[in-house]
C-alpha cells in the first residue's frame, strides 16, 4: 500500500462505528487472520436494552474470538473486545477494561469518544484508531486525542461509507493519516499481520 508507514510498534487497534458500520466490521473481522497479535477494541453504537446477539452476529464470519469484557477484565493479546450494551468501555491503567454507566456521551452509551480517548491515553503512539460509517459525530474527539498522543488515525473513505457524518466529523477536526475503503482496510490489517509474523 503506497504511502502507508507501517510498523510493528503498535500495541492495540481501536475501531469505532455506528449506522452502516456493521458490514465493514464483519468484512474486516472475516479477513483478519486468527493469529493477528494485537487486541482489537470495538466500540459500535448499539441498542441499549439488547444485551445479546451482537457478539454472536459479529462472530459468524470472524476468525477471531470476540468477547464483551467484564469490568476490570485484563486485556489479552490477539482478542477482539466489543463494548457491551448500555456501558461505556474505557481502557484503564494496568491493562484492564473499566466499564461505566455514566451519562450518555454524544447521545450514546457506549460512546466511541470514551473508548478512543482512554485507549489513546494508555497506548499513546502505539495505538491505531479507525473510525467507520456513522450518523453522528461520536468518535471525532477521540480521533483527535489519538492523533495528539502520536497514534495513527484512519477513517473509512466517505465514498465507501454508507453514512458519512462520522468519518467526515473526524476529518474536519483532526489530522487523519489514512482514508481507506473497506478493501484497503482489509489489506492494511493483512500487511500489519505479516509485519508481526516476521518480528517473531
Amino acid at each position: 500500500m503506497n504511502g502507508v508507514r507501517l510498523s510493528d510498534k503498535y500495541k492495540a487497534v481501536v475501531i469505532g462505528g455506528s449506522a452502516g458500520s456493521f458490514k465493514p466490521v464483519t468484512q474486516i473481522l472475516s479477513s483478519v487472520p486468527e493469529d493477528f497479535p494485537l487486541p482489537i477494541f470495538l466500540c459500535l453504537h448499539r441498542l441499549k436494552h439488547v444485551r445479546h446477539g451482537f457478539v454472536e452476529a459479529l462472530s459468524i464470519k470472524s476468525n477471531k474470538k470476540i468477547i464483551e469484557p467484564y469490568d476490570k477484565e485484563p486485556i489479552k493479546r490477539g482478542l477482539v473486545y466489543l463494548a457491551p450494551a448500555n456501558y461505556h468501555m474505557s481502557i484503564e491503567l494496568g491493562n484492564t477494561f473499566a466499564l461505566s454507566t455514566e451519562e450518555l456521551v454524544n447521545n450514546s452509551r457506549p460512546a466511541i469518544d470514551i473508548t478512543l480517548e482512554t485507549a489513546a491515553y494508555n497506548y499513546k503512539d502505539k495505538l491505531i484508531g479507525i473510525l467507520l460509517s456513522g450518523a453522528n459525530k461520536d468518535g471525532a474527539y477521540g480521533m483527535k486525542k489519538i492523533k495528539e498522543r502520536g497514534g495513527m488515525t484512519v477513517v473509512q473513505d466517505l465514498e465507501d461509507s454508507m453514512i458519512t457524518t462520522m468519518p467526515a466529523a473526524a476529518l474536519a477536526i483532526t489530522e487523519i493519516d489514512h482514508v481507506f475503503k473497506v478493501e484497503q482496510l482489509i489489506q492494511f490489517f493483512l500487511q500489519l499481520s505479516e509485519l508481526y509474523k516476521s518480528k517473531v
Partner: protein
Amino acid sequence: MPENNYFSATKTMHEIEINEIRRLTKIIQDNYGFDFKDYAISSFRRRISRIIDLYKFKSVDALINRLNSQPEFFEEFLSEITVNVTEMYRDPSFWKEIRDHVIPQILLNNNKLSIWHAGCSSGEEVYSMCILLEEMGLLDKANVIATDIDTAIISRAKQGKISKKNMVLNDKNYHRFGGNSSLDKYFDEDRESYTLKSDLLNKVSFRKHDLVKGFVFSKFDLVLCRNVMIYFNQTLQNNVLYKLHESLFKYGYLAIGSKESLIWCDIANKFLVVNNEEKIYRKIKE
C-alpha cells in the same frame, strides 16, 4: 444538572495528570474524610474534568483551592463526582429473576425479608423493588434500606420524584420486566413529574453510608450493589466485597451489575453463582 455533552468535539477536555489526581484525593481525605484514591482512574478522571468544565475552573489546582477555602463547596463536588445515572428496572430480565426465583427462595425459610440497596443513587432501583414487592403482596414483610455516599442524592431519592422524560424508559423497562399493571398506577402525577406513592416510599429507610469507609451496620437477605463497584479499582472492589459479604446472612443473595464480576476478588469462593447472566450470587461460606 446541566446536559452532559462535555465530550463535544469542539471543546478540548481538560487533560488531567495522575499526580494532580493524587493531590486532589489527598486534600479530600485530609479535609473531608472521604477516600477516593482507589476509585477507577478512567472514570474518576472524567468526573474531575467534568467538574472543571462545569464550574469553569482553570486548572485542577483551582479546584483544589476552592475545596480548601470553601468547605460548603464539597457537597456540590461530591454530587458531581459520583455517577447518578440510573433507571427503573434496568435489565428487566434481572428483575424477573429476583421476582421469580430469588425472593421466593428467601421466603422458603423466612417469613420476613431484608433488603439493602448499597449505592442507591437517585432511588430508581429502590422504587423498582418497592413496586415489585407490592405486586408480590410482600411489602409488609419487607424491610428495605437504601444508602448512598451523597446526602444530596439521598434527599432526592427520598422525594420519590421522576421526571416525565425519564419515565418513558422506565415504563418500557417495566413492561419488558412483565409487571402486572401499569407503572403510573404507583405514582402521583403532576405537570413535570411523577412521584412514587407515599405508602410505597415510606417503606424505605434512606440513610447516608460510605461503602469505602463505612462500617457493616446490619445483615440482609438480599444486597443489591449494581454498577457501583465499577467506579472502584480492583483493590477497593476487593475490600468492599468483604463488607458486602459480612452484611449478608449465610445463604443470602448478592446482586451486581450485568458486566461486573467477582472472579478477581479474594473471597469469590465464598459465593456461589446462582445466575451468571444476571450476576446473582449466594453467600455459601462465612
